[in-house]
């Protein structure tokens, strides 16, 4: 991942497992694919993230340091938009702008460009927000369930674009269909959320690598599976504003790629990480501000074929209600 591949995979990981903040349906959500609260009509979202690289995991799960003298970082500014399409339907779009700032002891390369665009739909299986303050009857335990379908569009700069070298890469170069299942429940002050994801890359022809034309072949990246689990606690401040602290764990896996139908044994990845988020919403809930820290333990067995990083994200979203 010269910075190229690093950036590319990092962008993917970011898009796949954005830090979630519990209680999306009640207006506390944010990070990753934006989710409108149940009574929200339109949402504008902006995330600024910095990701620092701290070594990587080999295919056998060993954590290894970056080369001596390396300082590798990626900055992302990600505007997002969500809009209600119907009582139970909402759509979203996010497009990160990626800035790579990486320094090796013998080479520096700073580049920037758009990342891959994510478009998606959420279907809400419920008609009213399910957040409750007290459980008085069994129906109060009903969770909010979202079913999601998303499409990653390769708008970033990939190894198969017209690029001079790997340092300029900001995207992966593949369309991907993502399906998500999201279940969450809030009984104030506690919130819990589970999100399961499955992504399938579409096969594509490749006739160029890093700007050099090669004999055409067909490439399909492996399927992706992701899981994230979060637990949040909300404080109600004297002015009725909310402050939510959320802790999370996520697991992202991608199978091996296929080249002309053959499995590529050098591909595939695993990444496990933790996150901690703070979210603040004033009483009117039209604004939401967040700060999160995502951390991948630099230990053997916490990943495979992927960099270990720390991600710090500052985000703000604005909701227009129905």
């Amino acid at each position, binding site marked *: *991942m*010269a910075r*190229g*591949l*690093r950036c590319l995979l990092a962008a993917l990981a970011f898009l796949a497992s954005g830090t979630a903040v519990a209680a999306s349906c009640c207006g506390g959500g944010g990070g990753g694919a934006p989710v409108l609260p149940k009574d929200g009509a339109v949402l504008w979202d902006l995330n600024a993230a910095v990701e620092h690289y701290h070594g*990587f*995991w*080999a*295919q056998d799960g060993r954590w*290894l*340091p*970056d*080369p*001596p*003298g*390396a300082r590798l970082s990626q900055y992302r500014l990600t505007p997002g938009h969500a809009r209600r399409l119907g009582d139970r339907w909402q759509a979203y779009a996010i497009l990160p702008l990626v800035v790579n700032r990486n320094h*090796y*002891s*013998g*080479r520096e390369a700073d580049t920037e*460009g*758009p990342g891959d*665009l994510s478009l998606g739909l959420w279907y809400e299986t419920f008609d009213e927000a399910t957040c409750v303050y007290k459980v008085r009857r069994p129906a109060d335990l009903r969770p909010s369930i979202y079913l999601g379908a998303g499409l990653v*569009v*390769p*708008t*970033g*700069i990939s*190894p*198969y*674009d*017209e690029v001079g*070298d*790997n340092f300029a890469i900001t*995207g992966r*170069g*593949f369309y991907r269909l993502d399906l998500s299942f999201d279940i969450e429940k809030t009984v104030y002050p506690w919130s819990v959320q589970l999100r399961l994801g499955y992504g399938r890359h579409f096969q*594509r*022809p490749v*006739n*160029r*690598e*890093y*700007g*050099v*034309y*090669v*004999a*055409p072949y*067909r490439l399909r990246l492996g399927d992706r599976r992701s899981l994230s689990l979060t637990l949040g606690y909300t404080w109600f401040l004297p002015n009725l504003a909310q402050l939510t602290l959320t802790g999370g764990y996520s697991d992202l896996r991608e199978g091996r790629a296929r*080249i002309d139908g*053959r*499995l*590529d*044994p*050098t*591909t595939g*990845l695993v990444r496990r990480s933790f996150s901690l988020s703070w979210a603040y919403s004033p009483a009117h809930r039209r604004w939401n501000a967040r700060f999160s820290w995502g951390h991948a333990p630099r230990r053997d067995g916490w990943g495979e*074929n992927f*960099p270990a990083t720390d991600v710090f994200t500052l985000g703000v979203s604005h909701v227009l209600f129905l």
Partner: protein
Amino acid sequence: MCCSFRRLLVSLLMLALGGCGMGDDLLPSDSDLRAVSGGGAYLPGEPVGEATRAAPLETVDGAVVRLDELLNDPLEPPRAVVLYFTMWCPICLAHTDHLYNQVLPRHASEPVRFLVVDYVSGSWVDMRGAAQANGYLGAAGLEIVRDAEGVLFDRLHGAMGQVVVVDGEGVIRMNASYRDGGELEAVLDRLLP
């Protein structure tokens, strides 16, 4: 209708991004365009240029060798020199593991040299540290070298995970991503006895 929608979406995206030189991934091509590359001393079938042959490559002991010296080794003239570009990243290590464990043993007794070319370290000491951390310091049959002046990277159009195979006559036989090592194996099978 589905296709029309997709075309509309793609057109809008290309319109939005076209000015930035992007968009090839939106509608990827399967055309073989190697013939229209315009040639160059980094493409298969072309001899490597003089500057590439003379480029200094530092070893993990600080010694300097040149590609020319490897190609013209009077004691063991190679039929092929394999250059693998690394930046000590996860994919690079996965490729190196495959190269070392799968490809190299098949050709251990043949006149071929395998070089892992570090193009990011600022000194041979840093390169040595990276090679050690990745478990390849002193690996039998695998030579770790530093592209001291970045000549190979620039002249051979190098990139992370790129493999260049130069035959004994100094002609490039492969310049492509390592992928699963299949193309490298095929090229070596053609070059080696």
